[in-house]
């Protein structure tokens, strides 16, 4: 089984602008993944499919993930002039990390009985640049799964033969699996005294729920 480093090396040779990055996985299983630039994704998949040693022929799983914008606090030591002396002062810098949507693919090889190879792709942002290439023409198993990602996360797959909502009805406008999705205000009371639910119940009865 080829390691991911070898794949990146080979792909770097044959693909002009591969834009591959190895993503580490700190969990005990340690299955790492490759972050691929959307422009070279299909080429990389074809390369891995045609490689004799890797020979992926089975796309098992397609997952969408939402990473909303978040503020990452970073502590940096900055040299400052304090009372004429140069001093190191710890400062907290707040970086606004732009949100994006991610798609993760798990590939296996049935012929070699090996895998998984995990590839991931990211969109530019969460609103406008949400188009990614579709893998359905190469692997039919992505058909329903990409439709699911489109339905629940709102990622548009270019080249998908029949991209429309799969679970929700066509008139539905939201992308419910996104982290900032607001549920419709449709239940009245909850006997369990969870604070979150109680606040919600109160809002419901007072009638000032924005989702109503």
């Amino acid at each position: 089984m080829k390691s991911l480093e070898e794949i990146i090396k080979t792909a770097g040779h044959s693909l002009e602008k591969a834009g591959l990055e190895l993503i580490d996985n700190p969990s005990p299983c340690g299955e790492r993944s490759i972050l691929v630039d959307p422009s070279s994704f299909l080429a990389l998949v074809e390369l891995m499919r045609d490689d004799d040693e890797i020979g992926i022929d089975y796309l098992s799983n397609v997952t969408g993930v939402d990473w909303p914008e978040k503020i990452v606090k970073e502590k940096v030591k900055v040299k400052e002039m304090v009372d004429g002396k140069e001093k190191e002062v710890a400062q907290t810098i707040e970086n606004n990390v732009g949100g994006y949507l991610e798609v993760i693919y798990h590939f296996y090889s049935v012929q070699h009985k090996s895998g998984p190879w995990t590839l991931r792709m990211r969109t530019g942002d969460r609103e406008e640049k949400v188009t990614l290439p579709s893998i359905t023409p190469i692997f039919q198993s992505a058909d329903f799964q990409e439709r699911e990602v489109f339905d629940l996360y709102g990622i548009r797959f270019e080249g998908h033969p029949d991209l429309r909502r799969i679970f929700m009805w066509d008139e539905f406008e939201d992308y419910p699996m996104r982290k900032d999705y607001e549920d419709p205000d449709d239940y009245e009371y909850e006997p369990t005294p969870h604070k979150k639910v109680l606040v919600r119940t109160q809002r419901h009865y007072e009638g000032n729920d924005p989702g109503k």
Partner: protein
Amino acid sequence: MLDDGLKSELSKQGIVTTTFEEIYNWGRKNSIWPLGFGLACCAIEMIAVSMARYDLARFGAEVFRPSPRQADLMIVAGTVTKKMAPQVVRLYNQMPEPKYVIAMGACAISGGPFKQGYNVLKGIDRFIPVDVHIPGCPPRPEALIHAFMTLQEKIGRQKLQGENRAPHTRSDMPSEFEVPQYGAHDLTPTKNTQEWVPPVIVRS
């Protein structure tokens, strides 16, 4: 009108007396035809009830009809999603009177474990009237049999005349309800306000 004492005395002598209402209800309650209509997990228990071990045929209710036009009873067996709710209401509307509904399982009653879900209807009684609720996730087959017996009792008590007569004998009671439409964020309307009133919880 014979009183109960005389009735039992006569039956000891081999004379059966009855009223039209009683024999009508007796016939109805022993031949309930359910709609063969499963939504989720509970449907498997519903099938199990009609199979050999639990044998629903003992209650005259083993004739599961695939068409709502031939059914008396709708067993809402499982989670009703918002996408499915219009179809459930439409099926109810298509059933001929008199018709009954058993809400089987926590999901059909209130959304159950999936209550937090954005696509889950929080109880089918928001759209159609329910006669018997059975809690459980899923209810055991015995619980469904109990629901059948409760329904049989309910049918047996129904009056054909007078003030409290059965809904299907009254022209002013609705037998069809509004089918909700798919909206941009939720169903429209989200509930049948004439039929369903939210429970009032008094916290001490």
